[in-house]
Every structure is written in structure tokens, then in C-alpha cells.
């Protein structure tokens, strides 16, 4: 239960970390919160030759709102927004869960993320775990990748070669695997925020069922529904954790809601389709059949919760 030997390097800056990763490639791993990497190293499932510690770097830990002037703007501060229609929430990769769960901006502007945070692990883990580390770890059983998928988040990947933005739907390629290249670091997460307008109002909900608060859930759903002024559903997203090799969107299930004034029949139909559409792996805590059952129940509950209490 002790890590194998490795070389430890405390990165002094983002450039330093990227240079080291370019030099060592797959032999090196970034150390963020260490809440997935260190257990894996203790169990010797992971035996990196070099550990590049991102914790000493300043400037990768921020939460801020910006107007959408195209991604890649250097101003990370909180600004007063004259036109709230195109707000983007920017979060630095090294922002810890404890900051996210206590952020007033996130509570006000991104209720889905705010509602999800207390479900992610235990308080002690949330004191260290980072959003970037979680997403780079790409555990399909985690709450945050599926929330990012439902929120249409964009991820900034940086390397000595430059930077690029990757959409959440392209980022998670399979279990514990992302679209990041061996020399790239995830440095920033950008979430487009929805604001109420005549065209539509969007409301969200996160629900999961775990044996214990803070444990990895047996099943969980992140849901987003948009209604127009006439009450017709113009957009719906149903995202599931622990339901496949990546976070999963049940697009066929969501399709039964779109274009409808959603009633009980639509909700039942969506839940039944989601039950079959997802591909849960099953484990000792919950069989595949039980996971599917939970997905159906949570789908119904989440849609009802949104329609009855969140508009």
C-alpha cells in the first residue's frame, strides 16, 4: 500500500509544468488533488515515473464570469456584465471542490453544478479534489463529467505547442481516457450559461442514488429542460453517470420530450427509453437490471422535479 518510487517535481509555473510534460510525455503524470491518483499509486495500479505537482502553481484556481467575446480571453476576473445573454462561467482546472461548492457565483449562475457538488465524495476529499483533475481522470461513474456534458462545457487544453478548446462531448473518449494528448494539460473549463428569454427558459436538476452520501453513486442523472413561452419543450438533455464507458446522454429518451407540452405520458415514455438506451456496467453494489431500474426512476423524478418546482 505504498507508491512505487518516482521522481517528484514541484511545478513553479504553468510553462514549467507544460515543459516537463512535453519532455517526459506519458512517463509523467500531473498531480492535482491526488484524490484519484494517489490511491491508484498506493495500490500500484498507477506507477508513474515522474510526478509533476501542479499545486504550487498560482493562477489555475479561479471562478469567474465573462461575457462571451469568443473563448481564449485573458481577463479572468469577475466583471459586471452589461449584456447577460452571453455569459460564460470560467473555472480554472486547479479549482478545488470546496471552492466550487461555496461559490456564490456558481450557486446563482450555474445551479446544476452547485446542486451536484455535495454529492461528489466526502468533505475531506472535496478539500483537495480539483475540477480539472476530476475531468482529466474521466471516470464515467463520477458526477462531474456528465454535468459538464449536459451543460455543453468547453475544456481548454494547453501544451508547449499552443492551446485548443475541446467540447465536453468530444473530451471523454472511453473509461479513464480523454482526448488530451500526452503533452497537454487541461487548464480551464468554460460553461455557457443560460438566461431566461422569450425564446426559452432552461431549468436543471441533479439526482443520484448512492449507498451512502459521498460514495460513488449506483446511478445518477443530470437533467436540463428548456420551455418556450407557450410551455412547449424546445430542448431537453438527460445525462447519466455510471451508465457506460463515458458519461452518457440518452438522446432518444430526450427526443420524446422535445416539441411537447410535457405530461405524465411523455415522462413515462422518456424514462422507459432511457432505461434501455443506457449501457450500465453493473457491479457488486448494483446489478445491470437494478441500475437500469434506478435510471428509469430517477428520470421520472428529475423531470417532474423540474416541471413542478423549478420553473
Amino acid at each position, binding site marked *: 500500500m505504498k507508491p512505487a*518510487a518516482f521522481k517528484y517535481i514541484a511545478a513553479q509555473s504553468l510553462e514549467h509544468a507544460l515543459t516537463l510534460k512535453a519532455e517526459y510525455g506519458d512517463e509523467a503524470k500531473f498531480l492535482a488533488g491526488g*484524490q484519484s491518483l*494517489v490511491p491508484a499509486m498506493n495500490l500500484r495500479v498507477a506507477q508513474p515515473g515522474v510526478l509533476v505537482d501542479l499545486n504550487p502553481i498560482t493562477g489555475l484556481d479561479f471562478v469567474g464570469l465573462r461575457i462571451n467575446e469568443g473563448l481564449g480571453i485573458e481577463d479572468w476576473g469577475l466583471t459586471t456584465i452589461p449584456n447577460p445573454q452571453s455569459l460564460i462561467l470560467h473555472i480554472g482546472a486547479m479549482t478545488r471542490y470546496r471552492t466550487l461548492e461555496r461559490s456564490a457565483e456558481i450557486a446563482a449562475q450555474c445551479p446544476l453544478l452547485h446542486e451536484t457538488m*455535495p454529492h461528489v465524495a466526502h*468533505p475531506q*476529499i472535496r*478539500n483537495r479534489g480539483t475540477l480539472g483533475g476530476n475531468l482529466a481522470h474521466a471516470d464515467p461513474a463520477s458526477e462531474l463529467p456528465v454535468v459538464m456534458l449536459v451543460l455543453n462545457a468547453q475544456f481548454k487544453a494547453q501544451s508547449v505547442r499552443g492551446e485548443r478548446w475541446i467540447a465536453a462531448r468530444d473530451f471523454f473518449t472511453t473509461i479513464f481516457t480523454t482526448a488530451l494528448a500526452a503533452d497537454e494539460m487541461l487548464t480551464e473549463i468554460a460553461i455557457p450559461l443560460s438566461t431566461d428569454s422569450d425564446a426559452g427558459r432552461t431549468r436543471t436538476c441533479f439526482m443520484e442514488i448512492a449507498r451512502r452520501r459521498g460514495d460513488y453513486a449506483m446511478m445518477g442523472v443530470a437533467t436540463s429542460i428548456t420551455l418556450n413561452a407557450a410551455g412547449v419543450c424546445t430542448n431537453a438533455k438527460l445525462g447519466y453517470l455510471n451508465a457506460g464507458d463515458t458519461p452518457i446522454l440518452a438522446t432518444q429518451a430526450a427526443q420524446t420530450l422535445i416539441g411537447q407540452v410535457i405530461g405524465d405520458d411523455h415522462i413515462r415514455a422518456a424514462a422507459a427509453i432511457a432505461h434501455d438506451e443506457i449501457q450500465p456496467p453493473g457491479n457488486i453494489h448494483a446489478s445491470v437490471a437494478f441500475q437500469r431500474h434506478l435510471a428509469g426512476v430517477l428520470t421520472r423524478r428529475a423531470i417532474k422535479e423540474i416541471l413542478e418546482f423549478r420553473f
Partner: protein
Amino acid sequence: MKDLHTITTTVNGKTYTREAESRMLLSDFIRHELGLTGTHVGCEYGVCGACTILYDGHPTRSCLTLAVQANNHTIETVEGLTTDPNKLHPLQQSFQDAHGLQCGYCTPGILMTMKAFLAENPNPSETEVREALSGNLCRCTGYQHIVDAILRMKDEG
């Protein structure tokens, strides 16, 4: 070849400088290098909470932290709760009064978790206490008396 680092860290108000390998966990550093064996080790992969210490004031798994990461940081362990061997910290006293421990293996991690929790949350509900305890396993008490011990802290201010 050993990857050695010089670590200067403040533990319970005292500054230590030691050399350690990068692969040494902070839990082992605290126990074996500093001799502070009040911090317990149960699982070494983050699930049990016995090794919880305060890292810059925040409850943290010392088994998921490298000793080198304590360099220039502040650590508090259960030994730091009280300096007088004849007088318990109020939280420790509350655990004794409410029978909040049996074998005591989980207790140091719970005390360090709850010290920070109560500082941020001086008047918690039972539900909040139970949520705050979710990351600490206890094989003896069934948790009821632990929850009681923490709730008693409300009355005693």
C-alpha cells in the same frame, strides 16, 4: 536511486526539517519520522478517514498526500488539540462524556474533521453532522454516540 527531498513543515505549531523520499506518504512521515502516532492509518486509499489531519486548516487525508507536499505548509494533528496532558480539548471531552468512542481507532480522524466542521458550522443540525461524518468510518460505535458527542458541542458553545 532515491528521490530525496528536504521538507520543512510546521506541525502543531512546531517547525520540523527532515529529509524524505518523494514516495513517502504524509501519514507515514507524521507517524514514523515525527513520531506523532496519534494519526492512524486504516486503509491507505482514502476511504476510511482514520488518517485525516488539518492541512493548512482543512481536513485532508494524510494517506493521499505526499510528505513533500507538506513542505512550507502547516499541519495539525490530534496531538495539537491540547497542550495540557491533564486537560482534554472540549471536543475530546465531549467524546468522552457521550461515549463517542470504543476502540478509538477512528477517533483522531473524526476529531480533526469535526474541529474544522464546527469552526465553520457552530450550530449544525443532526443531518449536517451526519453528512460531515460521511468520510469517516467507525467499526465500533454505530455512529450514534459520535453524533451525540458533536451535537453536545452546540450547547457548550
